[in-house]
């Protein structure tokens, strides 16, 4: 079976722009005065990362802040592009990087569901089909025709999460989103993830929560300073993780 995600020797460089100027004036002055000149510094966020995620696998991506987890996630979500190396993704990806992203406060819940789902490339017919299930799962039946600005943060998160899990992706990219809603809803979300797993979908799960990774993932991958430190069995990687944050 072909793997869902193949990351092959990926390097990602950011240019840090000290004294950054997007103004033409400062660019012009910079030609004459050192003081106005922008200083550029290269920073390697990922240094030769390779990772393969098989179809139906759930892999936990761990690592301290600034280790390159998010960069890797964005690269797989294809909003960033690698400086070097190659990434192959087979199947439709649903990034759950920020819940409620793209919601517009003045639009109603229903309008936001349609707008949001179409951001992920769904057609009208496809959204019509999943709409009732999205509303049911979010438990917002009574509020769906109200503008979303009147929702509480928790309600918005529920709607966002509900959309994401009903996109029926082949690959789910999750960035610490289980931390939304109350305990009961979190439980429901985790349950839904498990169901995803039973359906043979691929999950890449970024988390600091050792418990959540243990519960959900088959394998784990530990990143530090843009490099893969350990990959494989969850227990073994978690041990390495504890070691890495202790230092």
């Amino acid at each position, binding site marked *: 079976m072909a793997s869902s995600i193949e990351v092959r020797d990926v390097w990602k460089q*950011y240019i840090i722009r000290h004294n950054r100027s*997007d*103004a*033409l*004036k400062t660019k012009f002055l910079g030609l004459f005065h050192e003081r106005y000149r922008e200083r550029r510094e290269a920073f390697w966020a990922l240094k030769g990362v390779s990772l393969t995620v098989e179809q139906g696998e759930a892999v936990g991506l761990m690592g301290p802040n600034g280790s390159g987890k998010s960069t890797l996630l*964005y690269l797989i*979500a*294809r*909003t*960033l*592009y690698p400086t070097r190396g190659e990434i192959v*993704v*087979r*199947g*439709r*990806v649903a*990034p759950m*990087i*920020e819940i409620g*992203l*793209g919601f*517009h406060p*003045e*639009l109603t819940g229903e*309008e936001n569901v*349609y*707008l949001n789902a*179409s*951001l*992920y*490339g*769904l*057609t*009208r017919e*496809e*959204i019509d*089909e*999943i709409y009732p299930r999205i509303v049911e799962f979010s438990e917002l039946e009574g509020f769906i025709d109200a503008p979303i600005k009147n929702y509480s943060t928790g309600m918005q998160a529920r709607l966002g999460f509900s959309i994401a899990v009903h*996109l*029926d992706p*082949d690959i789910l990219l999750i960035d610490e989103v289980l931390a939304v809603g109350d305990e009961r809803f979190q439980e429901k979300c985790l349950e839904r993830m498990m169901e995803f797993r039973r359906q043979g979908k691929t999950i890449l799960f970024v988390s600091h929560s050792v418990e959540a990774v243990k519960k959900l993932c088959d394998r784990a991958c530990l990143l530090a300073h843009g490099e893969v430190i350990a990959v494989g069995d969850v227990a073994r990687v978690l041990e390495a993780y504890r070691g890495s944050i202790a230092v």
Partner: protein
Amino acid sequence: MVAGGGERTLWQYRELLKNLVLKDLKLKYGGSWLGFVWSLLNPLILIVVYSIAFKYILRIQLENFTLFLITGILPWIFFSTAVMASTTAILSNGNLVKKIHFPREILPLSTVLFNLIQFLFALIVFFPALIFLGAPLRGAVAAYPLVLLLHFAFTVGIALLLSAVTVFYQDVRHLTEVGLLALFWVTPIIYHLSMVPERVRWLFQLNPLTAYISAYQDVIYWGRWPAGETWGLALLWAGLSLALGSWVFRRYHPSFAEEL
């Protein structure tokens, strides 16, 4: 269940395009007709003020000046508002561009479409005025949708170009604003091209908007089919603008997420 499948094309994202345009319309008009009336205030005031200034004060030698003015100024308002709005089409959606993969072209495209729809609304509302002012509505009117299509294509090209460039150079917004102000006066909207001294007329003819505005005037004001030369220029500018706009956009969109 929803169909799977990897890469989705621009066509498959048509629902997104539609929803973005609808969002803009809903936000602007809020479902009320009052919002719509406000949006007509801008063209109305321009028409009244320019009519007074040019017809009664400067006494421009153009028969039926108000008709002439309306013919050119409505498409101009479409062009200038669409172009101005396109400068922030990507910038103001930074968070989306950073976190979700979708064809970025949709953003400037939806901006232009939203303004096109407002233009069409305005056309419908001003249509009785055109009749009242004695527009010679003959067979040539059939050319109007064609002129509009080419003008739209030209505007899309400029919007692609500016939406991409402003991500890297935000000053382009201000340059665009000033540029549009100047462009208005070198485009034959409140005067006829034949009034421009012959020596420099070729310069005015190099202005892409001259081709489109002249074509609109041919159809509505003069009641004639635009000349082959006008069509040629309109087609040429639309093609060049689309080619340049999409080339720049394709070249730079992979770095959008990093710059925003």
